[in-house]
């Protein structure tokens, strides 16, 4: 038996090819004679197409075809939202609308040409007449009575109104000794995988089969959607997520019109067709997330213990509802790690004329954590207590799991935290940032006129969702173990992690194990990589299939060696009797006998043919990862510049399979969260025209902005799966906006500055400083008691 691989800090096997330029991303695949596609996209946020003429474009040498929405009648079927609700007023999202367009960037025609250069030339030659319609550029406009409608002729812009409650929040707020309220806004942000989206397809007339290469996070989901839209059997559609995909982060888990159009065109033209999104398109047409307005009210006692939370959320669904996953995650994340006896959450999801929103790393959680953690600080300030102490008093304790929150999670099950130790995360984080000393340091800095602040954020993250994920394991003819996952990786290191897990299940060295991912032709069922779910769902499936395979291999070897299975074990790539290499059969020999066999000759008695095992794991409900972040910052009130002096992350994702990779996930997630905290703004104007459409206007963090971080882990294994694993993909992204905003407000407390928006940019800080000066001036003449947010001490 080899040493345990689960938990080992192993370098990745995929690195060698990626470091030498031998990665196989979609645009690298050799598809001889593939034509290039370019989409014509709406320049208007809301418009009707009144005339379309592609004559000149078609005349351009090298142009093979132009299709508009009107040419695609047979595939103009609504793309189904991923997560539904019976009360959702779903406005049909068509692959390429023939009449009315609902956001800047919506595809309305596609050019197919010999090269992308020619296809882009042709786009310029297409004549379109538009009737421009009034547009909705924010949820505030969307919900304004008598305001413009995102979809002409619709009854309102509201997609769904939902509420969640436990206890009686209204009554508890009415009777609470203290209440505070505030309005918070979080800005849209994107996934910004460095490789944009891409789809290629080839039709095989002889078999009637379509092969589709897609940078999707969910190849089986894409196949299922396509089989419905094309009315084709799943087996005639093969969706392959290439072994190398340049990042996903949520937007690539969604399903888009381009994914419907490209394979259809390939079938129509009987030529391979490839579309590779450029960054300009990605800015206007890849789904985004984040923008929400929260009006939150909290009630608490003199000790700072929460009595009630009421939160009214406006969620920007964009032009269509790609699914309700994000707002439903937000609603169930508001209570976080705290005991909230009375809670009421109202959601107003509405349509706007901006690119549809769906999950982006963190998926609805950063918003909820932002508002709750901001209020924890406000409570502390109101009572003159330390923010760490207020959190301590409200945290769910380590002996209270499983903990029933009282409301429902997005999977419909009662929100129940499986395991965790929130106090240990908080205390560990405080200890590592040197909290008491940091507070003294803050006092010293303040005395010198410097603005230093400390911000905390504690969170829980529902992850490891069902319905299921699976794996297949086979002994190949060459005597290697092949682990096949439905899940498609985007850089998480699946080829390494699942070889580790399989090695432990098999009791066999990793060097004999290969992993393949993301191809619907290799494994029939799957869900995909999203919602930090794969290690907790696919991991157990791999482990179980590996254990089954171990039993099969040993059984088969025992028959051949004429002994009992209990007497044999692996030695390198052989199964040995009693550790004797002379009495052994190799994996290749086992494949020879049980898988290949001798044509027409009976199998040795007792050998079962076909060394292949499969397992699907369906978790009972979501697992809960958790964490605590602490930031110490210095703010320059003149410029609004923030310097991060120190940052500590405490993280708990249950069992850590590979610490090197988990650290990578957390730190990468942190950088994304820092972007949401301080830089990333997908600004749209009131007419819903995107204003940030290049990296010159939309800032992604570089090595210069991301500070060194101290990271520690605790491991509270989940009881919901045999590995005890929880999700690690998004936790790092969730709390930084809260931690940074808390730190900035804390730093500027002497000036009475309020931070209510994310990202906290220099301009916003400067504005808040000016506003605080203004309110100080007016406070001398009017009563400050009207400030429902409570005055900072």
């Amino acid at each position, binding site marked *: 038996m080899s040493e345990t691989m689960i938990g080992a800090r192993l*370098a*990745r096997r*995929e*690195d*060698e090819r*990626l*470091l*030498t*330029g*031998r*990665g196989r*991303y979609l*645009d*690298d695949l*050799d598809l001889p004679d593939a034509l290039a596609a370019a989409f014509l996209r709406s320049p208007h946020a809301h418009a009707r197409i009144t005339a379309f003429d592609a004559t000149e474009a078609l005349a351009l040498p090298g142009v093979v075809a132009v299709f508009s929405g009107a040419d695609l009648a047979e595939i103009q079927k609504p793309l189904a939202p991923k997560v539904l609700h019976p009360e959702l007023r779903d406005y049909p999202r068509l692959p390429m609308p023939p009449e009315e367009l609902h956001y800047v960037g919506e595809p309305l025609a596609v050019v197919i040409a010999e090269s992308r*250069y020619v296809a882009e030339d042709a786009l310029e030659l297409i004549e379109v007449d538009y009737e421009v319609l009034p547009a909705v550029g924010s949820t505030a406009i969307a919900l304004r009575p008598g305001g413009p409608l995102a979809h002409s002729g619709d009854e309102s812009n509201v997609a769904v109104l939902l509420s969640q409650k436990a206890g009686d929040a209204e009554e508890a707020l009415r009777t609470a000794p203290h209440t505070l309220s505030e309005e918070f806004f979080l800005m849209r942000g994107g996934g*910004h*995988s*460095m*490789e*944009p989206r891409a789809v290629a397809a080839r039709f095989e007339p002889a078999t009637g089969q379509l092969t589709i290469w897609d940078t999707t996070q969910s190849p089986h989901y894409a196949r299922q959607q396509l089989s419905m839209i094309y009315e084709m059997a799943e087996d005639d559609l093969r969706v392959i997520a290439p072994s*190398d*995909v*340049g*990042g996903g*982060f949520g937007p690539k888990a969604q399903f888009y019109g381009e994914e419907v159009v490209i394979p259809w065109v390939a079938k129509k033209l009987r030529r391979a067709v490839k579309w590779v999104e*450029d*960054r*300009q398109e990605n800015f206007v047409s890849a789904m985004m997330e984040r923008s929400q307005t929260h009006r939150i009210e909290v009630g608490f006692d003199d000790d700072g213990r929460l009595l009630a939370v009421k939160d009214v959320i406006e969620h920007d669904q964009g032009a269509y509802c790609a699914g309700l996953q994000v707002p439903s995650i937000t609603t169930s994340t508001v209570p976080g790690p705290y005991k909230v006896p009375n809670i009421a959450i109202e959601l107003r999801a509405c349509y706007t004329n901006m690119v549809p929103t769906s999950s982006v790393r963190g998926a609805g959680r950063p918003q909820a954590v932002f508002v709750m953690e901001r209020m924890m600080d406000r409570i502390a300030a109101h009572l003159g207590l330390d923010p760490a102490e207020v959190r301590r008093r409200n945290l769910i304790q380590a002996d209270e799991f499983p903990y029933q929150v009282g409301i429902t999670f997005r999977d419909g099950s009662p929100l129940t935290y499986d395991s965790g130790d929130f106090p240990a995360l908080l205390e560990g984080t405080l200890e590592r940032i040197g909290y008491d000393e940091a507070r003294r340091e803050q006092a010293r800095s303040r005395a010198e006129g410097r603005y230093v602040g400390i911000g905390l954020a504690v969170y829980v993250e529902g992850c490891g969702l069902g319905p299921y994920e699976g794996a297949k394991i086979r002994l190949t003819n060459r005597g290697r173990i092949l682990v096949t996952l439905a899940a498609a990786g*985007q*850089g*998480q*290191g699946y080829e390494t992690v699942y070889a580790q897990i399989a090695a432990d299940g098999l009791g066999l060295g990793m060097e004999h194990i290969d992993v393949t991912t993301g191809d619907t032709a290799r494994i029939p069922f799957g869900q995909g990589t999203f919602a930090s779910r794969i290690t907790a769902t696919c991991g157990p499936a791999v482990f179980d299939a590996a254990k089954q395979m171990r039993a099969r291999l040993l059984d088969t070897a025992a028959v051949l060696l004429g002994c009992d299975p209990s007497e044999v074990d692996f030695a390198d790539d052989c199964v040995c009797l009693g550790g004797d290499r002379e009495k052994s059969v190799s994996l290749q020999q086992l494949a020879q006998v049980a898988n290949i066999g001798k044509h027409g000759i009976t199998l040795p008695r007792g050998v079962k043919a076909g060394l292949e095992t499969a397992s699907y794991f369906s978790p009972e409900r979501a697992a809960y990862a958790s964490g605590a972040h602490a930031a110490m910052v210095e703010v320059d009130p003149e410029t609004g510049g923030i310097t991060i002096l120190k940052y500590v992350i405490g993280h708990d994702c249950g069992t850590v399979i590979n610490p*090197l*990779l988990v*650290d*990578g996930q957390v*730190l*990468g*997630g*942190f*950088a*994304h969260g820092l972007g949401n905290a301080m830089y990333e703004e997908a600004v749209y104007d009131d007419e819903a025209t995107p204003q940030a459409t*290049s*990296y*010159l206007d939309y800032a*992604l963090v*570089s*090595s*210069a902005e*991301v500070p*060194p*971080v101290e990271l520690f882990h605790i491991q509270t294994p989940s009881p919901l799966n045999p590995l005890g694993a929880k999700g690690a993909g998004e936790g*790092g992204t969730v709390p930084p906006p809260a931690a940074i905003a808390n730190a900035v407000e804390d730093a500027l407390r002497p000036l009475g500055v309020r931070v209510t928006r994310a990202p906290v940019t220099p301009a916003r800080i400067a504005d808040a400083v000016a506003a605080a000066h203004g309110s100080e001036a007016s406070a001398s003449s009017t009563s400050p008691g009207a400030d429902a947010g409570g005055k900072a001490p």
Partner: protein
Amino acid sequence: MADHTLSVTVNGESYDEAVDARMTLADFLRERLRLTGTHVGCEHGVCGACTVIVDGVAARSCLMLAVQTDGAVVETVEGLAVDGELSPLQQAFKRNHALQCGFCTPGFLMSVTAALREDNVRDEDDAREVLSGNICRCTGYSGLVRSVVDVAKGRSDE
């Protein structure tokens, strides 16, 4: 249309090709020479994924035309490992988990390779400076910073 001729040396091999004036160096490398290690992430000079070394200087191949490299010596990620042996920087990337999806990786390797040749990376601050011209969405940079410091230190310790 392919009305410009171009002689260029890429990773030690010479090529004579006819190209459109407007073909970018990135597309020339990827599509014509099938050296697909050089990636295109933004096509507006910000992400650095397309970075190659032209006559010893790191350059964004999305902002350069292929014809501009007539007579030049170009190095791409495919040329970094010699006889299958990863360069010290490539090894450091692997050791320090400096890559996840790997899409940004070739650009980082080329930018840093060019910078390290100038031998002026002394500490973590310099490393961050050298890396700051490229964007990575996956790693959060800490592994990249460690890799650069490792290699720079290795060199000065020699």
